[in-house]
């Protein structure tokens, strides 16, 4: 039954592809970031808020870093709005850095603007 054998082969190929894909680093949640608390201060360059989560690009001594802030409800809850994240404003970010070496990406737990705390994850120490 050459057809059936071909079908099984195809099935295995598909399964292998999915297993390979599941090894890809998960981006949501915290698994992709290091466990170490991280802090960085920079100047806001650009902002894109919204689903699935907001992104703030900051300049740190000439280097661009991307800060992941919360999804809309999480940002709204602490009053972190686009009006606050104005280009040129200084921002300090507490959170976790990407575990990928050399990647300048942080997931924020808490940000500080004008000495005011915006704690996106009150349940987490930051």
């Amino acid at each position, binding site marked *: *039954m050459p*057809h*059936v054998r*071909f*079908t099984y082969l*195809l099935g295995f190929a*598909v399964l292998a*592809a*999915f297993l390979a*894909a599941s090894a*890809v*680093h*998960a*981006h*949501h949640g915290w698994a992709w970031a290091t466990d170490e608390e991280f802090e960085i201060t920079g100047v806001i360059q650009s902002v894109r*808020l*919204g*689903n*699935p989560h907001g992104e703030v690009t900051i300049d740190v001594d000439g280097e661009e870093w991307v800060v992941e802030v919360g*999804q*809309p*409800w999480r940002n709204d809850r602490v009053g972190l709005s686009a009006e606050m994240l104005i280009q040129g404003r200084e921002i300090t970010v507490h959170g976790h850095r990407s575990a990928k070496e050399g990647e300048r990406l942080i997931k924020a737990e808490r940000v500080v603007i004008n000495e005011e705390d915006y704690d996106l994850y009150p349940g987490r120490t930051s």
Partner: protein
Amino acid sequence: MIEQALVSVENLAFVSALRNSTYMYPLVNAGHILGISMLVGGIVPLDLRLLGLWRHYPVMVFVDVLRVTSAIGLGFAVVCGVLLFATAAVDYAASLLFQAKMALVLLGVSNALILGRVLKRQDIRSFPMKAPMPFSLRAGAALSLVAWLSALLLGRLLGYF
């Protein structure tokens, strides 16, 4: 020009509302997944039957039922997918993963349309019960499996790169 059009899509009032929504965005996301699960959940057994599995069940049962559920699933996936695309149109349009995924979806749809015509022309309905499918149909079914599963894979990878 295109970039301007994409920016104005992102700025449409209902698109902005969706981008900043608490419940609508995950709901549309769920609708997209529902569509994909109906589409792939139908197309996989249908293609496997055409390839030669389950030959003691009439092929037309698979064709008549699963073609409809898959098409409805595709409809859901496209409608919800267009909405998700609109919330970040510029970024998606520039993504190679997204472009490749769209190419695969187009390939899958055209392949399905051609397969439908071949099914008709070859008069599969009058085939004896356990007859193997003609080569053109088996080739189309294999291409269909590869196209749709790859499109699903690329779609998922989009969220991570």
